[in-house]
């Protein structure tokens, strides 16, 4: 049986002999942790090691891990709750929106300063005092740009992984 035939047969992941129980269980536990780490890397990026790109690659790695262990269709039907359209491409539409939207967000975050009389891609920093719990809270406009980077990279990597994985 070739790889394509394996991919195309009716899916039954309980009966899938390609992965072991151990790997499936570990994946269940590890993936939420990876995603949590990825998001925290994204958020803390301005002051500590991390940032949009690293967070994005880590997020993509988490999804690719699910692909490898559970297969593409599981991600589509059970994780993302999409109806299968037969050719195994349905999530790619969403990923395309993700990287398109990310790029748009990055460009918009660059254009917004122009409205306020600054140059293209000027980044500002706000400090809010007397915030409960934090006392002083910093918001950098660069975060929106970083969010754009994150979405673009996640969308692009997942597109590549889904397309290559379907092959």
């Amino acid at each position, binding site marked *: 049986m070739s790889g394509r035939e394996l991919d195309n047969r009716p899916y039954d992941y309980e009966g899938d002999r390609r992965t072991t129980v151990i790997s499936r269980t570990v994946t269940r536990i590890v993936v939420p942790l990876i995603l949590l780490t990825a998001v925290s890397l994204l958020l803390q990026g301005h002051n500590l090691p991390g940032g949009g790109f690293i967070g994005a690659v880590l997020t993509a790695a988490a999804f690719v891990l699910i692909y490898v262990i559970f297969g593409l269709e599981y991600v589509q039907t059970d994780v993302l709750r999409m109806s299968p359209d037969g050719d195994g491409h349905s999530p*790619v539409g969403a990923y395309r929106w993700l990287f398109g939207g990310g790029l748009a967000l990055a460009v918009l975050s660059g254009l917004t300063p122009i409205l306020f009389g600054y140059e293209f891609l000027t980044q500002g920093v706000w400090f809010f005092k007397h915030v409960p719990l934090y006392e002083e809270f910093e918001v950098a406009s660069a975060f929106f740009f970083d969010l754009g980077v994150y979405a673009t990279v996640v969308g692009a990597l997942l597109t590549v992984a889904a397309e290559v994985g379907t092959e």
Partner: protein
Amino acid sequence: MQPTPEVVLAVVFLPFVAAALTPAVFRVLGERTAYFAAATALVCFGLVTQLSLAGAHGTVSYEWIPSLGVSLAFYVDGLALLIAFLASGVGVLILTYSGGYMHGEPGQAKYYATLLAFLGSMLGVALASDLISLFVFWELTSLSSFLLIGHYTSESASKYAARKSMLITVSGGLFMLVGFLLLVWASGQALPESTYSLVVLLENADAIREALTASGLLVPALVLVGLGAATKSAQVPFHIWLPNAMEAPTPVSAFLHSATMVKAGVYLVGRLRPLFLSEEAPLLGEWTLLFAILGLATMTVAAILAVSSTDIKELLAYSTASHLGLIVASFGFANEYGAEAGAFHILNHASFKAALFLVAGIVAHEAGTRQISKLSGLRKHLPVTAAIATVASLSMAGIPPFNGFYSKELLFEAAWYAGKEIGGLGYLFPVVAVFGSVFTFLYSVKFASLFFGEENDNLGHVHSPPATMLVPPAILGLLVLGISASATLGLGPETPINAFVGHVYGSVSPGDPHGFSVHFPTELSPYAAMSAVTILVGAALFPFYDRLHDGINALLRGPVRANWWYDGAVEGLSATSVRTIPSVQNGLLRTYATWALASVTVLALGGYAAAGVSLPAFEGFAITLPIFLVLLVAVVGAVAVDIAPSHVAGVLTLSILGFMVAIFYILADAPDLALTQLVVETLVLVIFLLVLNRLPAFYGEVNRSRAARDAVLALAVGATVFVTVLVTTAASPAEPIAGFLAENAGVPAEHPPFFTNAGGGGNIVNVILVDFRAFDTMGEISVVAMTALAILTLIRMRERGETQ
């Protein structure tokens, strides 16, 4: 008076705006888009008239690329206004005519949009005074011509014709660009600073010419610019694209390939004439040798070919080339008659030739054929058309008292004086002029004769044309009569037509020109005799027209035809590239990688060698034990990749190398890099394993010589990277940017609640990425998105079977 800048800009850019709107307008108006387009042309015509009536003369300039001295500059003078008048005026008529002609044809939105874009480009060519602007508009006319010739995209004849005209005119334009650059270089030698401005070049013509002569570049510059003009104006041997261009719808042929676009080359010759031809120019200088001979040769050869044509549009196409040759020859002669003849004939030719093309369109549309042998006696069905055709044909033949006679008379005058003053072989000029004109007479009379005589039995029912198709050629016919009347009555230089031609004459001649007027010859001068000989010999030969036609066709075989050379060259090139592809692009990734890497290595190392870069001095190792151990493991991993027995083992050992690099980053205090390296390495490993699923598990037999070649290449690439790193890190600027970044990345000690002048972040790497160098990052994520799109397209297209 200085021209109003807004008016000049509107003239050039209004058609482009209208072209952009055309698809939307077409949805609303449908076939009546023709009148929208004609109205646009009419507005341009009105604006040009306003400029002309106001006596505008001068330059309008806007900055375009100030760092290179290139500007968007326009120059309004007699010659520019003449071409602008032709483009916009004939444009109005052609677009109106198209409303009738294109009824029910496919692709009308594209057709009108392209015609309007062409109109704007042509007005740009006429008015541009900056050499780069001129070149851009020049190539835009070639592009729109390409689209219009290939209007019927499914027919192979259209495609062949469009490619041919594109290849010839665009490559000619590139030669012209090189010629322009030579002129700019010469201006840098002759003037305080180099200039792209035609006006400045013309004002300092003597100094530029001296600079060119001193450096021996006069002839190269002349030939290069001449190539641009000759390809555009279909001069021998580049005349071959024009008859094929008749595949375009007839209004296009009338507009682009008779009245306007092909005039661009002639315009360029006229425009540069005062630059290359001083008042005291020798009679037989480089200019005259090039253009008088080129023009007369074209005039004669194309007239002979016109007699050999079997199709009315083909006949008119060769006749156009022939008349363009007449104008080029006139400009080529270094006397005032030449300048007058060229200036006057541009106007005359546009008037009668556009009328004749529109007549040909009516005949083809209503009689259903363009074969000369099948057409005769059309007068009964198309009386008005026949009258227009007769007037225009007689003017084309150079028969008095029509306007074509007067401009040809001026050419004879120019040729006669040139011959007389040069003496000896110089008399060939008038002789060749008369010889070519005899053929002009023959085909002109042949065209008129289609409307007379017995009606051909094979001709079916001939409809009468709609008014929109009849009025435009009628207006042109009246214009021919008007110019003829003005000339025959011998009106003075102040009358409108003569004053206008006088301005054009002023633009193409050096020094101060006198007023322009022509009059009917009343005494037997040598050139009047030349006209008489032309008409008498032509009339005597006309009964033998069919024999001449067959005789020329019998001679036109093999290498005698310029087409034989063109087709041979194009086919030879295609065959060569088809043969080369299998060895250059064989579909194997390793071939592409080999070529790409080898060229990068050779170019980079060659660049260093050429720049004389020296390697920094070696200062001894300064690494700690942990780093040494990590790098050692990395080297071991690298060696293991090379001897790995399978793909999976190879990929796994490769990732050892990657992870060691990550650890190296940690040891070198770069946590961000290390994190990135770790996650990327992981992801790449997983994707590799996904892909490997599709590949054979083991390598095939290893070819020894190929392995040796790859090893050498790998060593060379590694050496290149090594040298590059050494060289780039050796340079130490006085104030490294790191200092600025470190100072501004963090939160300032004293800061307001909102600030933009500092990064405000503790992680300097991230602040650089999203703030100081955010524009770079934006470029990078665009590349990431593009890569994803490319992979998506490649894989999807293959699955859908859309590849060829």
